[in-house]
């Protein structure tokens, strides 16, 4: 599955895709759906995302050090699932995500702290039917840094909408997980080609740390 990537990327680059959209001055962190329903391998929707959660903690630490905006998404549906529309008809396993179930809670390994925002959503994109755009914009966020799961589902949809709402979009490869490697890589490829920059954890930490220098020099 993966050997197509280099060839396709070469072709895309020669045609003017996969440009760097780069980082802005004020990033917000978007942690997509690291809830028990997805991170508990016993859940029908679940996978083992231990490594991605560890990477997310490293990003969280960097954002918290500078009090940068941090948002988590969870999926939770009302009893009866009338708020789940066509999505639950297509993916009946979403029925484990009924509001109040531990399956809807953020994984303890990345426990949210006071002042961090929890966005309740119903669909793949973190922006669809939520006030995430307003929440980020009110805090001057110009760059949306994304980790979470799954790469081929809610991360991809959120990255596309992040761009469409006008943010520079950065996806941290090490912080994103999927049930299988094929869709994971294919979707990182598409995101990097068209919607945002896919970067490593190290690059992300260097970027966030680099934001502090001008402030320090000015004081």
């Amino acid at each position, binding site marked *: 599955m993966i050997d*197509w990537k280099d060839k396709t990327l070469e072709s895309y680059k020669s045609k003017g895709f996969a440009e760097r959209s780069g980082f802005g001055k004020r990033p917000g962190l978007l942690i997509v759906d690291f809830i028990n329903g997805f991170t508990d391998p016993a859940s029908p929707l679940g996978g083992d995302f231990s490594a991605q959660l560890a990477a997310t903690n490293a990003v969280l630490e960097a954002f918290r050090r500078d009090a940068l905006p941090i948002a988590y998404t969870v999926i939770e549906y009302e009893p009866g699932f009338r708020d789940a529309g066509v*999505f639950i008809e297509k*993916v009946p396993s979403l029925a484990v995500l009924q509001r109040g179930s531990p399956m809807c809670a953020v994984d303890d390994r990345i426990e949210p702290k006071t002042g961090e925002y929890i966005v309740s959503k119903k669909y793949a994109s973190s922006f*669809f*039917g939520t006030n995430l755009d307003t929440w980020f914009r009110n805090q001057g966020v110009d760059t949306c840094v994304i980790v979470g799961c799954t790469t081929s589902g809610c991360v991809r949809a959120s990255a*596309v909408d992040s761009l*469409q709402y006008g943010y520079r979009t950065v996806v941290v490869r090490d912080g994103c997980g999927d*049930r299988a490697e094929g*869709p994971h890589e294919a979707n990182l490829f598409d995101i990097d080609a*068209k919607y945002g920059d896919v970067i490593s954890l190290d690059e992300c930490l260097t970027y966030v740390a680099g934001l502090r220098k001008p402030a320090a020099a000015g004081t």
Partner: protein
Amino acid sequence: MTEDLMQNTRRAYDNRLGFGSKPALLLIDFVEAYFDENCELYADVRPALDSALRVRDAARSAGVPVIYTNVVYHSSGVNGGRFFQKAMPLRHFVEGSPMGAWAAGLTPDPSELVISKQYASAFFGTSLASTLAAQRIDSVLLTGVTTSGCIRASCVDANSHGFIPIVVTEAVGDRHPAPHQANLLDMNAKYGDVVAEEEVLNYLAELGGAGHRHAAAE
């Protein structure tokens, strides 16, 4: 990875939505840029357009609304935002560019709606969702280019807005087979049904037949 891809995908996702009772047909971004070999956006998608035109004939016969999208930017590109910065070939879609003209063979009827958009999704920043809702449309038949770009984004948004997305396999195309296949897999797993042209044509024929019977009964 202990479980193979298809096995895992089937476990989490193996479900069909089925056709709706009042569809609309979307032809997404079938413009010259994807058909001109000298353009960076060229994608060898003539067969996809031919398939979409067959579906369009069937849709017209069945009285199903046909809607087209294209991409149009201000000459400065300013309304293309980050997308214009990230994907350089989008400059071919500034207002008046010959690359933004309809592909040969695709002339919208004046009675059919054209929606100009600036981003990947046909729904983002456009009136498409309310237009469909006002006509009580329950499903969208998706054709066009590219599978990994605007088709994928429009499919996800169709689902989020409450419409059943039906992707017509032969009528969507991309520059490279791998992203094409990967995105068909994702869309069929989570958002809509990826269905063969023949099945869609049969569905539209039935729908047209039912409509005519209904009209005759009145």
